[in-house]
Every structure is written in structure tokens, then in C-alpha cells.
């Protein structure tokens, strides 16, 4: 299903949930709506589903205007963050209900389909139970099964994993890509977690405060954020942002702390004035003892070294995020693996000219690390 939003906006009373936006989804594509809570993700999903009607603008499906069309007559499926199932029906009946109603399939076909989907989601053993008797993870699987069984041309998921345990989240997320691939329906997936967007791949639309900031292939958006706002929204741990003054040989970050960007600057129009330098935690090098780097590849040449004090070492999954206090301000560095760093420990961070972003005074991105971008072409596959 090809979906086009055309200057769609949504107000409720005085507050605006969505500012006018255009969006165009290709058939069978996976689009991640990325944004903090209350960024407008849910409002947008509800518009796509037809649960709400846009205050202004039009929604087109395969070239036909569906703006005012009631939910019932649309071909969509939706999964909420709460585990929504029909408590009075068994799991099997739950999964079957949309099929029964559509009347496209006969009874044996339906029960066959139910069994298939249940198998794919590993809930075939619960088919005769009632949702209330299942664990949270299983309940959400049932909700997913119901949505998949319908094989609607548009499938909407509103933070489906947010209420699950850490590991369950990982497992289900892993299954998603295969599940969606097999469906062939256009999928829109709302999440607050940048990591989730990256794992799911496909396309990403970054929302912030009801505005659509950027839309494109996920890796592309991640590596070439149009603006500071996008970079902020699409970084976890938060991207490090430092005020930077343009100088001939690069940017000055502080007294006698100048980052040499000669090579990069050759590719750019002359920069001047107060800029913002951005560097992602993953790109920031951490030298636990001065001189010794935790990376093989060292570009000693232009690397800018800054002394820092450890504020907190957060272990997330297989990475350690080190929150640092420096003369430049607070920074976050990321190291693969689990490392123990005590509060107050002294370290050195290295800022690599090849790894920085520059944003102009209006917040628009003017320089991105070109190395990462070239690799980004590998991403989809």
C-alpha cells in the first residue's frame, strides 16, 4: 500500500499535536517513527489508522483520498504498547476475529492461518487459553499475532516493546524484521529508542514536538542528521554538543583548545561565527591512562586531547557509557564491553577531526564525518 500524507496536521482544542507535515511511504516499506514521548508519534499513528481525523490536510492511499474514511472500512492493523486483547475470547478466537469479520476466508482456512501465525510467534501452545492467563510477553505476542493474521496492507505499532522485560524486548525485536518481511504490508513502528530504530533499519522519520524533522533511510538519517535537533533526537547516549568558534585552521572549543579541521574545511565553504560541534559518544576516544588509547587506529596527528573526570560509568547492554566532566562541559563517551571506572577517576578524551559534526548558528548541519557516511551504504541488506 502506498501512503501519502499531504500537509496533515492535528489540533485538539488549543494544543497542537502535529504541525502540518508531508510524508510518503512506499509499499512494503518499514518506517520507524522516532521521537521522545509526546513528540507526536502516537497522534500520527492514530491519523494513519483513521482513529482520528486530521484537522487539516489529506491522506492518500494508492492515490485515493481516505482522509475521512472510517476505521472499519480501512485495511489496517494496530498494536498498542499496552497488551490489548479481547479478554472474553480465547487466544485462538482473538487471532481469528479480524479474519472472521473480513469474511474473506472460510472456517478451515482461518483456523489454518491462526495456527501458522501462532507458530511463527511461538504461542501455538496457548491457543485455548484466555489472554489474562498469559504473561505480559505472551499477551503482546497474541496482539501481534492478531495484527499479523489480518495481513493488513498497513500495520501500525506504537512502542510495542516498551512494557516488556529487557531481554524479552531484545528477542521480539529480533523476530520483528523477519515477521515484517514475510508480511509484505507497509509497516510503521513508533519508538523512543534510537538503538531500536537502528536495529530495525528501513526508513526513519524523526519527530520532535509535533514536527517532522527528517525522513530517509535509517542509517542515512543517523549519520547525516539535517540539524542539531535531529542529531539530539537520534542519539543514545546523547550526542556531545560543544560551542565552537570558527577559526582559520578549524574551530576553537576553548582557550588553547583548537580542533584542526584543515582537511575537512577544504570541502566546505568558508565557515565563520559561533558554530556548534557535535560528536557522538561512540566516536569520542577514551584514553584511560594518558598516551594509551583503547583503539588500534590512532590518528595522532590532529587528535585533540582533553583531560576529563568520570561522573558515572553506565553499563548498557554490551557497552559502557562514561559520563565525563571536562573544561569544555559534560561529555559522554562509549566503550564496547563492560568496564569499571570509579566516580572521580581522571582520564583523557580524544576528539578526532574525522569524527565530528558541525552545525551552523541556525542549527543546520554543515559538516559530517565522511568516513562513516561511506560505510553507511552497507547498511541496508
Amino acid at each position, binding site marked *: 500500500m502506498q501512503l501519502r500524507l499531504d500537509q496533515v496536521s492535528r489540533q485538539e482544542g488549543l494544543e497542537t499535536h502535529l504541525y502540518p507535515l508531508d510524508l510518503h511511504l512506499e509499499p512494503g516499506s518499514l518506517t520507524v517513527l522516532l521521537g521522545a514521548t509526546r513528540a507526536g508519534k502516537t497522534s500520527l499513528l492514530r491519523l494513519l*489508522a483513521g*482513529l482520528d481525523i486530521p484537522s487539516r490536510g489529506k491522506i492518500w492511499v494508492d492515490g485515493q483520498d481516505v482522509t475521512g474514511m*472510517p*476505521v*472499519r472500512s*480501512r485495511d*489496517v*492493523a*494496530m498494536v*498498542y504498547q*499496552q497488551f*490489548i486483547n*479481547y*479478554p*472474553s*475470547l480465547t487466544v485462538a478466537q482473538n487471532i481469528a*476475529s*479480524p479474519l472472521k*469479520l*473480513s469474511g474473506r476466508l472460510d472456517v478451515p482456512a482461518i483456523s489454518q492461518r491462526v495456527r501458522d501465525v501462532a507458530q511463527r510467534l511461538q504461542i501455538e501452545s496457548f491457543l485455548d487459553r484466555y489472554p489474562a492467563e498469559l504473561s505480559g510477553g505472551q499477551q503482546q505476542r497474541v496482539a501481534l499475532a*492478531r495484527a499479523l493474521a*489480518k495481513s493488513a496492507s498497513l500495520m501500525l505499532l506504537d512502542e510495542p516493546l516498551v512494557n516488556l522485560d529487557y531481554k524479552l524486548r531484545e528477542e521480539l525485536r529480533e523476530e520483528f524484521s523477519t515477521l515484517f518481511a514475510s508480511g509484505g504490508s507497509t509497516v510503521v513502528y513508533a519508538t523512543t529508542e534510537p538503538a531500536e530504530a537502528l536495529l530495525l533499519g528501513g526508513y526513519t522519520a524523526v519527530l520532535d514536538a509535533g514536527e517532522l524533522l527528517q525522513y530517509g533511510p535509517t542509517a542515512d538519517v543517523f549519520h547525516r542528521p539535517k540539524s542539531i535537533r535531529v542529531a539530539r533526537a537520534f542519539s543514545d547516549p546523547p550526542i556531545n554538543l560543544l560551542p565552537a568558534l570558527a577559526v582559520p585552521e578549524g574551530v576553537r572549543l576553548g582557550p588553547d583548545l583548537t580542533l584542526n579541521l584543515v582537511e575537512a574545511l577544504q570541502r566546505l565553504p568558508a565557515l565563520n561565527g559561533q558554530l556548534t560541534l557535535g560528536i557522538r559518544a561512540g566516536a569520542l576516544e577514551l584514553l584511560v591512562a594518558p598516551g594509551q588509547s583503547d583503539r588500534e587506529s590512532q590518528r595522532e596527528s590532529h587528535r585533540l586531547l582533553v583531560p576529563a573526570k568520570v561522573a558515572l560509568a553506565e553499563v548498557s547492554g554490551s557497552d559502557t557509557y562514561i559520563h565525563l566532566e571536562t573544561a569544555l562541559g559534560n561529555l559522554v563517551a562509549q566503550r564496547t564491553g563492560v568496564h569499571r571506572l570509579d566516580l572521580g577517576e581522571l582520564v583523557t578524551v580524544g576528539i578526532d577531526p574525522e569524527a565530528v559534526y558541525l552545525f551552523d548558528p541556525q542549527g543546520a548541519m554543515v559538516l559530517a564525518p565522511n568516513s562513516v557516511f561511506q560505510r553507511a551504504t552497507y547498511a541496508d541488506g
Partner: protein
Amino acid sequence: MKGAHWRNVFLTSYLVFALLPIYWMVNMSFRTNEDILSSFSFFPKHFTWANYAVIFTDPAWYSGYINSLIYVAINMVISVTVALPAAYAFSRYRFLGDRHVFFWLLTNRMTPPAIFLLPFFQLYSTVGLMDTHLAVALAHLVFNVPLAVWILEGFMSGIPREIDETAYIDGYTFPRFFLKIFLPLIKAGIGVTAFFCFMFSWVELLLARTLTSVNAKPIVATMTRTVSASGMDWAVLAAAGVLTIVPGAIVIWFVRHYIAKGFAMGRV
């Protein structure tokens, strides 16, 4: 534990206070008038079913029960049926004047039947409903419908709206969703509501008495009239009284698990 001890003492003493008068009536209902008037005792000396026999054989008595049950049933059905959709509307949507309508309904629950006495009398005489079960049933709607809406609305608000939406997305029509999915979810609520409707319609005297004379005369009226008529047949009166408690006791037993919840939900 000391606290628990005092609680039980208090609870027991209250239950005694609550049950003693009832017991006294039960006790009397198994005695003969002479026995009652002559001697004073906690237990029926000459145990007798006679009083009950009187009631079950004399149409003037038992028809009273039948009449009451009929109009209570009618009222219950109407109240719940009309209240369900309204409660859904109140719990799910905002619409022009919703809060005012809700308040207006409440005021009816709060209006003394005495006020409606006259007009009902007039109204029903003119439309020829006097002395019919329907008359009483309709009259009792005044306070039961608002109550039903009130309680059901509470129960319905407890159900996440996403379930409705999912149903519509799945392609359910409103009526089908309402009957197949939604009603089963609020079974408890409906039970509790029915219970309250039963209760208030069953216990009401003033309207029931005024709007009926012979054909639909409720038991409550029958009793008051015997009080005035026959020279105080205490024993039979007691028996009649006991019998009026039975249906309520049965109903409450069925909803005992929900009743606390029901009170909580009743928009409370």
C-alpha cells in the same frame, strides 16, 4: 494482636445490633398471636408455619409478592437496557451538554418521590396506566435509570478505550462490538446495576402504593393496609415481612463478590 481483637468485638456487636431486630421478626413469624401477646420469649415456644400458610394460600397476600416481582423485573430490564448505551456515551465521548445531562439525571435520583406523587397520579390516570405493573415500573425509572447510568459509567471507564479501537480496526460494527466484546467485559457491572435497581424498586413504597389499587397492588402496600385493617395480626405481618427480605437476600448473595467493587465503581 490487640487491635484485631477490638475490631472483632466492635464488628460482632454491630452485627448483633443489625440482626437482632430482624431475628425478632423472624422469631415472631413462627409464633401465634396469642403466644406473642401473652408471653415474651427469644424462641417460638409453639413453633408454627401457620402464618406462612396464610400468606401462601390467601391471594390477597401472595398476589402482592407476584405484583411486586413483576414490576421490579420490568423496571430492572428497562433501566439496564436504556442505561447501557448512555453510560457508554458518557464514558467514551464528550458531546454538547454532556455534563449537564449527567447532572440533570443525578437530580432525578435525588428528588423526593413525594414530589412526583400528584403529577404521576394525574398523568397515569389520563393515559390509563393506573393500577398497572407498567405504571410502577415506569415511575421507578425516575430514580433507577440515573443510578444505572451512574454505576455502569464507572465500570465502563475502567475498560481501556484501546479495546474499542482495536475492535473497530478489526472491523467490528458498533452493535456487534458492544454485544460480543464489550458486554462480557462489564458482566460484573451489569450484575451490580441490576442488583441496585432491584433493591431500590423493591423497597420503594410511596409511589408503588399510590399508583396501584387492586390489580398491581404490591406486597408493601398490602402490608400497610393490613396494618390499618385487621386488629394487628402481628404474626402474619411478621411472616410477610420476613418473606419480603428473602428475595433481596438471594440477590445479594449472587452479587456478593462484585458488590464492594460496584460501590467503588458507582462513579465513586
